[in-house]
């Protein structure tokens, strides 16, 4: 008799491999064939995880059609099953996996769109903190280069492909022209959670660098320097007003390395 851990490993491989490596005489199922019954677990695992991926990547499903998506998902599940039981975290590696599929080699926009959808899923599962108002800082000395904290759900994605345009085109129920040629055009996307939804915007290079620096805690001075290096006409005041207006700022404080601190 196998030790329990060995037995469970064997069963798990049977369930994921879609072929019974467990010996039939280890199982019973009334008068039924136990190996046929084992397929119920195989189907449950595959179909429930495929459904989880389809829920996270709905536009990707439409881009490749559902049958192909199911095939790709099935392969992904077999090779990269979840490592934890929190399914909201399952699928992070799926966009990268799509890049390795030969059939999709001439459609790089599929994996790139999947990358955007994963960022959306992450944002939807992240806290939305109370936003701060610009007026709250009217009488506060924040020093010359304050630290600005942004919503933790903010995700910034840069792609060589027009991923936001693709994503937007698939938000309506209407059929998207299959012959449409998605252009190789860099897009810089910012997205964050607002209640039950995400807000998505295209950013120019300078604004993207500005937001990116703030998000990673480099402070206002560094962020402004990055933005100005890319666009000497970068308007810092407008950029700050926009961050507050979009309810993205959750805190502003004197920088920890500031001399005034």
């Amino acid at each position, binding site marked *: *008799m196998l*030790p*329990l*851990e060995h*037995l*469970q*490993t064997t*069963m*798990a*491989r049977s*369930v*994921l491999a879609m072929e019974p490596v467990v010996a039939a*005489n*280890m*199982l*019973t*199922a*009334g*008068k*039924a*064939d*136990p190996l*046929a*019954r*084992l397929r*119920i*677990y195989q189907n*449950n*695992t595959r179909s*429930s*995880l495929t459904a*989880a991926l389809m829920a996270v990547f709905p536009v990707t499903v439409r881009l490749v059609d559902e049958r192909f998506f199911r095939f790709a998902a099935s392969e992904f599940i077999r090779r990269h*099953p*979840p*490592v*934890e*039981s*929190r*399914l*909201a975290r399952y699928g992070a590696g799926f966009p990268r996996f799509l890049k390795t599929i030969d059939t999709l080699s001439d459609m790089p926009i599929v994996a790139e769109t999947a990358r955007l959808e994963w960022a959306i899923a992450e944002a*939807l*599962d*992240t*806290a*939305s903190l109370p936003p701060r108002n610009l007026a709250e800082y009217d009488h506060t000395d924040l020093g010359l280069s304050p630290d600005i904290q942004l919503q933790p759900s903010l995700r910034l994605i840069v792609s060589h492909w027009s991923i936001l345009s693709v994503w937007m085109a698939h938000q309506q129920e209407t059929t998207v022209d299959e012959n449409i040629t998605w252009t190789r055009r860099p897009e810089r996307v910012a997205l964050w*959670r607002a*209640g*039950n939804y995400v807000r998505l915007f295209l950013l120019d290079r300078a604004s993207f660098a500005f937001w990116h620096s703030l998000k990673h805690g480099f402070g206002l001075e560094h962020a402004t320097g990055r933005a100005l290096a890319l666009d000497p006409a970068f308007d810092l005041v407008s950029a700050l007003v926009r961050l507050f207006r979009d309810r993205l700022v959750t805190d502003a404080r004197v920088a920890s390395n500031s001399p005034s601190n």
Partner: protein
Amino acid sequence: MSSMFSPLAIPASAGIGLRSPHISEMLTRRPSAGWLEVHAENYMGDGAGVEALERLRQIYPLSVHGVGLSLGSAQGLDRDHLERLRKVCDRFEPDLVSEHLAWSVADGAYLNDLLPLRYDEEALAIVARNVETVQETLNRQVLIENLSAYVAFADSSMSEAEFLAELVIRTGCGLLLDVNNVQVSAHNLQYDAKAFIDALPAEAIGEIHLAGHATNHVGADTVLIDDHGSRVPPVVWALYQHAIDRLGPRPTLIEWDTDVPILDVLLGEAMWADMLTASIMFNRKQAARREQTTKTRATPIHLSVQSETTTSMPVLAAFAAARCARPCMSVALVSIEEEYHAAA
């Protein structure tokens, strides 16, 4: 730690599983539902659903039902997942916490399904150790749910019911009796469903689950699939009646996870569970009263002091009818009732 919520005990009546399509309606309509149950894993992040549940928790008693702890894993518990469960319990302060007698993690993979154990001493020691770890971490008793199964292990040395009974003795855990799971497993593995229920320690059963299942025909094999995708079928209601007859009223949950219907259908199923329980208890009291009367007539010198029945079937029926007649309840609910009356 100070409590965020006022304590709301789960009553021995029916509640519903909270599913995302219903959250908005639950918040705006606040329908009469005894209590709510959520899957712990859906509330381990920080999304909008978590914020909504914090608001609902102010109104409804809550049960947290884990589906991913894999209590039967020989490799032991995922401590990170257990810590996430602890945070969910700290955050929402549920009245009940439950998990499954199953495993879903092995060989570094999470299978997203609940697989059966080989019921023997080795497995019992592993599950008991894991349950004790969970109870110590959460600092509370947890309820362990019986499984719906499609296969069993030839080398099992005890039945699932015997395993659960022994687990209760060793760990002090409670039990969650899933009546639909009993029906599914008993059919698929060919044992007596009522005998399974009768073999469980009644006092340990702190909650009951009810759900629908699908019937699949594969060649000569007719297999019941625990899909939680339809109304509670008559055969499960009959088994529930048997359970309530033996146990008395228990918090009872209507589970519906696939093809989730409109909220009123769930509420209608919950109401039917309440009425069935009330009917059983009413009949029991009537029978006791009749027996008492007979005894009194036979021995007139023995005075009987029977306490007044506090709940009677006509009152409950009127209450249920009033709930049906409320404008917020749809016409569909009435037809559900009719359907069940017809089936009964």
